[in-house]
């Protein structure tokens, strides 16, 4: 007896029982998953060196600090921000660096501490900025923020100097803390 092939039988069965044509694809209904991603604002500053030293010469305008500091500012901001700025400052204008010897009452004011940003002209810490004591700060940079620059990073070199020209300072060790902070506005 001639054997009926299985495939032939299936095709016959398909025809008999109304199987859809071969080109009728079967699709499931669409299912969905909601995705929510949150990118928060962030603004950080790091300094490549955490300390600078000065070998002072009495009456000299040039007493450079070593090493030069590098401030790295990194940000991710909302598009509502229009500017970012970096500020260096002391907590008090009259005593940026404070004497160590108990009998000494003279300090180094912030106006005698200067900074050259990225090789620019030296400027004193005599501005009133968003942070720190009045007249004890210096804006180190400000830049506009647009959508393409809403996230980014930049490095700025800060060469410090203590200007003692015309300023009488007793021999002593003077210590202080320069603070750096960035701000996105508004």
């Amino acid at each position, binding site marked *: 007896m001639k054997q009926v092939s299985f495939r032939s039988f299936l095709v016959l069965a*398909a025809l008999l029982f*109304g199987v859809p044509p071969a080109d009728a694809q079967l699709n499931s209904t669409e299912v969905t998953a909601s995705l929510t991603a*949150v990118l928060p604002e962030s603004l950080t500053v790091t300094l490549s060196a955490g300390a600078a030293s000065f070998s002072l010469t009495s009456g000299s305008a040039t007493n450079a600090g070593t090493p030069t500091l590098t401030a790295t500012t990194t940000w991710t901001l909302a*598009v509502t921000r229009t500017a970012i700025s970096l500020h260096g400052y002391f907590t008090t204008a009259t005593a940026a660096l404070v004497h160590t010897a108990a009998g000494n009452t003279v300090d180094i004011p912030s106006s005698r501490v200067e900074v050259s940003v990225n090789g620019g002209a030296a400027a004193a810490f005599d501005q009133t900025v968003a942070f720190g004591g009045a007249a004890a700060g210096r804006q180190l940079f400000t830049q506009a923020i647009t959508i393409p620059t809403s996230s980014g990073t930049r490095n700025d070199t800060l060469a410090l100097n203590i200007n003692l020209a015309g300023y009488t300072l007793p021999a002593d060790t003077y210590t202080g803390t320069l603070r750096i902070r960035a701000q996105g506005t508004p």
Partner: protein
Amino acid sequence: MKRIRVGLFVAAAALLSLSTPSRAQPLESLTVILSPGAVNFALTSGSGTNAGNAAIAATTSWTLLITRNNLSLYAYFSSAPSALVHVTPANTVDIPSTRVEVSVNGGARVPFDQTAPFGAPSAARQVFSQPINLFNLIGNRTDTLALNINLSGYALPADTYTGTLRLRARATP
């Protein structure tokens, strides 16, 4: 003779299914369910690894006719440039589907950059494709989809971004 017996069994089963009161119901079924139905991402700017807080389990169940020889599952977005859309009106930047990646069952992460039968061009990814034969006309399988948003080299403003990942299975031909 064995071939004929198997064929008769299939035919009898089909006949029984047609003779029941549920005859009006479709002979085939193909469904996909997801769990969970929502995934959150805590993004870090510039990071290549921003994993979703939960992997999605996609369970595909099917009852197919003997004419089918393949079953595939696709995940896709309705737009390639805007898989996840910004929320803040002033923001014009979105997350494209090429930045959304999926690891299926622990495999390598791959972006949604394929063109599939569903969704927008270059906005999809085939999750699986498997042959269908006489022995798996009825079945189900669960696949895990671990999502990731790759922001390496992509500048994105701080914001909340929302989107919808869609999945659909297809049996062919």
